[in-house]
């Protein structure tokens, strides 16, 4: 029996706006175990990003129960329990790649002599060795996103929260990064929450797929992925892959996501 690392119970989150209240999350209950790779999929406005931000304590739930690493999201954030990768790489343009990756380490008060070794290690993990001195604009979109993943990995949090990290990249780069991410997850044993718009991406990467639907944002299906842990890119042509994809599609349809 694995330990539960993130658990939500009857979570509601309502944004109050001038003309109407928007129910971003309605009665969301979910359990995520240590070491899982969970994808959140659904159309825009289904609350998948909001749920991720609630886990990260960047949004405050209106009601319900949410625990991260056994404590409140706020405390988890204070204990630096997670690394967050945003949709846009969000590298600070005035810092080179090395100093972008070392930013969280500086803030968290790592010793000066520890930092170079850590930066070197995580840049190697994302295959960016040799780019330390480059500024973000000198890198391609895919490389920037990899640097941003390295930054989130640098302080070795147990949880990695990723909000559509590859959404803005073309399919070829995305395939490559998916493969690398899977490798990274296997070697680091982190728990990953991954928001995406893409069915193949969700099925290829995850151990668990959470299908969400908008108005109000809610979970319509939670699919345990039966694919083997060893996943070459070709697995996406297998029967099993297609049948899992179909179930995701059905989930989306039942939530009226295509309307």
């Amino acid at each position, binding site marked *: 029996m694995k330990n539960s690392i993130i658990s939500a119970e009857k979570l509601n989150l309502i944004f109050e706006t001038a003309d109407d209240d928007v129910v971003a999350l309605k009665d969301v209950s979910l359990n995520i175990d240590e070491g899982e790779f969970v994808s959140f999929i659904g159309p825009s406005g289904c609350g998948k990003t909001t749920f991720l931000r609630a886990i*990260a304590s960047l949004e405050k739930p209106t009601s319900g129960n949410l625990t991260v690493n056994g404590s409140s999201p706020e405390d988890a*954030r204070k204990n630096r329990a997670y690394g967050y990768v945003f949709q846009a790489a*969000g590298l600070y*343009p*005035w810092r080179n790649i090395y100093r972008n990756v070392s930013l969280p380490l500086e803030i968290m008060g790592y010793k000066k002599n520890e930092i170079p070794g850590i930066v070197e290690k995580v840049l190697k993990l994302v295959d960016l060795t040799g780019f330390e001195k480059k500024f973000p604009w000198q890198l391609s979109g895919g490389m920037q996103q990899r640097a941003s993943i390295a930054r989130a990995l640098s302080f070795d949090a147990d949880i990695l929260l990723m909000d559509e990290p590859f959404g803005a990249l073309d399919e070829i780069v995305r395939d490559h990064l998916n493969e690398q991410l899977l490798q990274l997850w296997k070697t680091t044993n982190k728990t990953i929450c991954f928001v995406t718009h893409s069915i193949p991406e969700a099925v290829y990467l995850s151990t668990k797929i959470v299908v969400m639907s908008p108005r109000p944002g809610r979970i319509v299906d939670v699919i345990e992925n039966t694919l083997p842990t060893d996943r070459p890119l070709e697995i996406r042509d297998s029967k099993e892959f297609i049948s899992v994809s179909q179930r995701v599609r059905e989930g989306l349809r039942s939530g009226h996501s295509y309307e």
Partner: protein
Amino acid sequence: MSENTFINYFKNSFLPILSIIIIIFAVWYIFTVYLNSSIQIDSYERQKIDWDFSDLVRDTMSQKKPLLPAPHQIVSEMWKTIFMIKITSKKSLIFHSYITLSSTLLGFTIGTILGIILAVSIVENKAMDASLMPWIIASQTIPILAIAPMIIIILNAFGLSGLLPKALISTYLSFFPIAVGMVKGLRSPELSYLDLMHTYNSSRLNIFWKLRLPSSVPYLFASMKVAIAISLVGAIVGELPTGAVAGLGARLLTGSYFGLTIQIWSALVMAAILAGTLIFILNFISRITLKRMGVQE
């Protein structure tokens, strides 16, 4: 490549600037003849001299106290007062420029520091934001010509005279663009940059040093360019009510007492050269700094 760059530079930068300069000079000379001709014609008639148009053109450009001096008269006056006179002399334009420049730089430095301090307190403190901003804006609605003599007189009563009171008038003008620009710069980081800091549970101090301050640097340089130019204006204005002892402002004032238009114009041109040089230096520093901060060329 170098030849090409040179030709391109010539085409794109040098040629347009040159043509504008030629046009300005042509118009200037035309106006010199036009504006100075009535006095010249009067003097011809009083002395009962026969004259033709070429006499008129020649003589309007060599009057002692012309309404509008010709460019070459200004250049020769400047040559005389810059290179032919010892710089310790009260007639040297370099001496006067130095006086004005020193109060400009002192005032600009104080103004920049003051502007940054105000901006930081406005951004970091809500009460400061509400209470300070209206006063900062109101301070600039008062015409500097009206308040400059007051500042000088009041500071004199406190025993302050010489460089500092003049510099404070520059400060009065220059802190404003710095404060406004810095407030905008310190507030410029995108929401996602701030969110990132929150995920690290970063302290306000760290957010300030590692995010807000670096984001504000381009804004600071843009404001400094405005501030240094008006610091010069402030220094000149500050020299007017002090009895016009020294400085470019003094040259303007004595020039206008005695109708020495050539002296006035050469002081004006000198002020323009000073302002241009100061902005050029600032531009240079700004480009190097921003390049080191990874700004794309």
